[in-house]
C-alpha cells in the first residue's frame, strides 16, 4: 500500500510538471501581450521598460524556470490587467465558483440518484422513460443553451428568480458567501441548476445502471425473501451497493464542474474563476491564464489521486485487518 501511494504521488507530480510546461509554453505562443498593456503611441522607452518589468524580454525557457520557481513558492505572478497577484485574484474569485459548483453537484446527486434508482427499479414504466429522456437531454443539450432557457423562463417571462449577478453575499471569515441568505440563494438557484444539469444526467445514468444490476443480484433476492419492503431494500441495500461508484464519480465530477462553470458563470455574470479565465483570455492576461490553468490542473490531479486512494476506505472488502476472518 505505501508503495502504491508513493507511486501515485510521483505520477501526479510528473503530470503536474508536464501540464505546467505545456500550459506555459502554449499560452506564450499567443500574440504579444505588451501591445495590450500600453497604448500604441507610447514611446519606445516606456515600452522597453514595461517589457523588462514583466520579464517579457527573457527567453521562454528562462521565463518558464522563473515561473516554476515562483510556482513552487506559491507565487503565480501578477495580473497584467488588474495588477494584483494572480493567486490573490484567483482565490478572491474562488469562493463564488466553489459554492456554485458544490451546490450543482449536490443538486445533481440529491435529485439524480433517487430518479436514477427509480428508473433502474422500474425500467419499463412511463415515468422511467421520462426520467431517461431528461437524462438524454441533460447529456446532449449544451449547458449554455439550458442557461439561456432558464433565464428566459424564470427571470424574463415569469420574473420569479433573479439572474445576471451574484446578488448579496454575507461575509464569513472575510469571504463573501451567497448560500447563507435566502436572497443569496435565490440568486444562486438558476446558475446552480444550470450547472447541475449535466451531473444530474450523469447521476441518473449511473444510479439506473447500478440499480438495474443490483435488483437482479442475490443480495436483493435474499432481502426480499426475508420480507423486507421494496423501499427498505432500495434505501438500505441497493443505495449502499451502488454508492461506491457514485461517490467516485461525485468526486471526479466536482473537478469538471469547476471547468464547466466557465460557461454558466459567463451566462449568469457570476463573478467566479470561470468568468475570470474567459475575461483573461479575451484580454490576453497571460499570468492569470497560466495561473488558472495550473490551479485547475492541480485540482484535477489531486482529485484523481484522492478518489483513487479513498476507494480503499469506501469498500470494506478492500479494507484489511479489522477482524481476522
Amino acid at each position, binding site marked *: 500500500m505505501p508503495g502504491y501511494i508513493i507511486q501515485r504521488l510521483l505520477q501526479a507530480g510528473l503530470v503536474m510538471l508536464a501540464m505546467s510546461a505545456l500550459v506555459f509554453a502554449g499560452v506564450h505562443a499567443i500574440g504579444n501581450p505588451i501591445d495590450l498593456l500600453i497604448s500604441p503611441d507610447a514611446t519606445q522607452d516606456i515600452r522597453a521598460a514595461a517589457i523588462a518589468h514583466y520579464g517579457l524580454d527573457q527567453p521562454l525557457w528562462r521565463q518558464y524556470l522563473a515561473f516554476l520557481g515562483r510556482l513552487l513558492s506559491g507565487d503565480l505572478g501578477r495580473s497584467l490587467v488588474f495588477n494584483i497577484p494572480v493567486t490573490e485574484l484567483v482565490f478572491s474569485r474562488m469562493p463564488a465558483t466553489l459554492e456554485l459548483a458544490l451546490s450543482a453537484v449536490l443538486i445533481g446527486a440529491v435529485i439524480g440518484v433517487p430518479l436514477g434508482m427509480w428508473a433502474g427499479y422500474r425500467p419499463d414504466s412511463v415515468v422511467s422513460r421520462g426520467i431517461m429522456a431528461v437524462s438524454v437531454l441533460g447529456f446532449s443539450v449544451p449547458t449554455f443553451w439550458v442557461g439561456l432557457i432558464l433565464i428566459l423562463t424564470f427571470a424574463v417571462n415569469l420574473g420569479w428568480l433573479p439572474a445576471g449577478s451574484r446578488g448579496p453575499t454575507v461575509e464569513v471569515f472575510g469571504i463573501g458567501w451567497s448560500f447563507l441568505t435566502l436572497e443569496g440563494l435565490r440568486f444562486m438557484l438558476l446558475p446552480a441548476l444550470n450547472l447541475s444539469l449535466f451531473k444530474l444526467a450523469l447521476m441518473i445514468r449511473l444510479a439506473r445502471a447500478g440499480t438495474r444490476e443490483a435488483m*437482479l*443480484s*442475490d*443480495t436483493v*433476492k*435474499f*432481502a*426480499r*425473501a*426475508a*420480507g*423486507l*419492503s421494496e423501499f*427498505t431494500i432500495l434505501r*438500505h*441495500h441497493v443505495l*449502499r*451497493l451502488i*454508492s*461506491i461508484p457514485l461517490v467516485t464519480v461525485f468526486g471526479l465530477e466536482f473537478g469538471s464542474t469547476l471547468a464547466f462553470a466557465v460557461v454558466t458563470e459567463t451566462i449568469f455574470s457570476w463573478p467566479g474563476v470561470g468568468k475570470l479565465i474567459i475575461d483573461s483570455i479575451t484580454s490576453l492576461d497571460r499570468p492569470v491564464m497560466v495561473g488558472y490553468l495550473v490551479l485547475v490542473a492541480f485540482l484535477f490531479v489531486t482529485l484523481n489521486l484522492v478518489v483513487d486512494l479513498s476507494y480503499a476506505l469506501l*469498500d*470494506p*472488502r478492500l479494507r484489511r485487518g*479489522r*477482524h*481476522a*476472518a
Partner: protein
Amino acid sequence: MTLLQVRDLRTHFLTRAGAVKAVDGVSFELGRGEILGLVGESGSGKSVTGFSLIGHVDPPGRVVGGSIRFDGQELVGLAPPRMRELRGRRIAMVFQDPGATLNPVLTIGQQMVLAVQAHRRLPERDARALAAERLTRLGIPEAPARLDAYPHEFSGGMRQRVAIAMALLHGPDLIIADEPTTALDVSIQAQILVEMRALARESGTALIWISHDLAAVAAVADRIMVMYAGRIVEAGPVRATLAAPRHPYTRGLLDSLPATTEPGARLRQIPGHTPALLSLPPGCPFAPRCGYADATCMTAPPVIEQDGRMARCHHLLEPSP
C-alpha cells in the same frame, strides 16, 4: 398436520419465443416439521418451484395456475403486501451462495437488524440482541462482536450459518433452502447439513431442501421428490425411494453417484441433456434419454400411486433383485 398443500402449480416464463414451462403442474403436500428433499438437474424447475412458494419469481416468469395453500391460506394471487408479511416471518429462504446473498457493504448486524425490523417494531438494541442470540445458536463464536463485521470477514461456511441464522430470526414454519451447501467445502457441507436438520427438528420447522445432490438429500430428508422438465417424476419416503427407485430417471441419478456403484466400475452418466423447455417432445419428456423408452412413451405417462409413493412413467421399474 398439513402445513403446505401445492396443487397443480404452473410457473411459466413468458418470453418472446414462447412460454417456457419451468414448473408445469406440480402437486405435493408437506407436514409441519417435515423435511422434503427436492431433487433434479439444473433447469428441472426445482429452484423456480421454491421461488414460486415465496411469491418471487423473476420476470418474465409468473405463476400462471394452480394453488398453494400455506397453513390454510391461499398464496397464489395473494396481495403483495400480505405476501411480504409472510416472507421471512413464516416462510424463510436460504440461498446457494452466501457470498452473493449477503450485502458486501453492510455489516452482518445492519443486515440482520433490517430483517428483524421488517416484521417486528423492535428498537435497534433489541434487534441486535435477537440477531446475536440466533448467531450463537448457529455456533458462531463471540456473536455480539461479530455483528459489526462485514460478510467478507467470515469464511464460506460461517457466512452460510449467518444466512441460516437470518432465516431463523422470526421462527418460521417453513424454510426453503435452495442448494444451501453446494458452494461450500465438502466437510463444511456435512456439518451444515447435520446442523440444519437438528435445528429443524428442534424447532418443528418444516424444510424444503432443494438440491441436485442425492446424497445430501438422502442424509437430511424424510421424503424426496424428483423433478424433471418442470414435473415431479417420482416422490416418496426417502429410504424406500432411493433403495428401489421406480422411475428410470431416479435410477439414472442414483447410478451416476460414486458411492452406489462398485468400486472401480465406471460411473454411468445419464446420456444426453435436460431438454429445452421450449420444445418438449410429446409424451414423456425423459423418453429421448431413457433406456426403457418405446412407442408408448410418445404419449403422456400415467401417474401411478402405490404405498405412499408416486411415479410418472409407462415402465415402472421393479425392485432390483
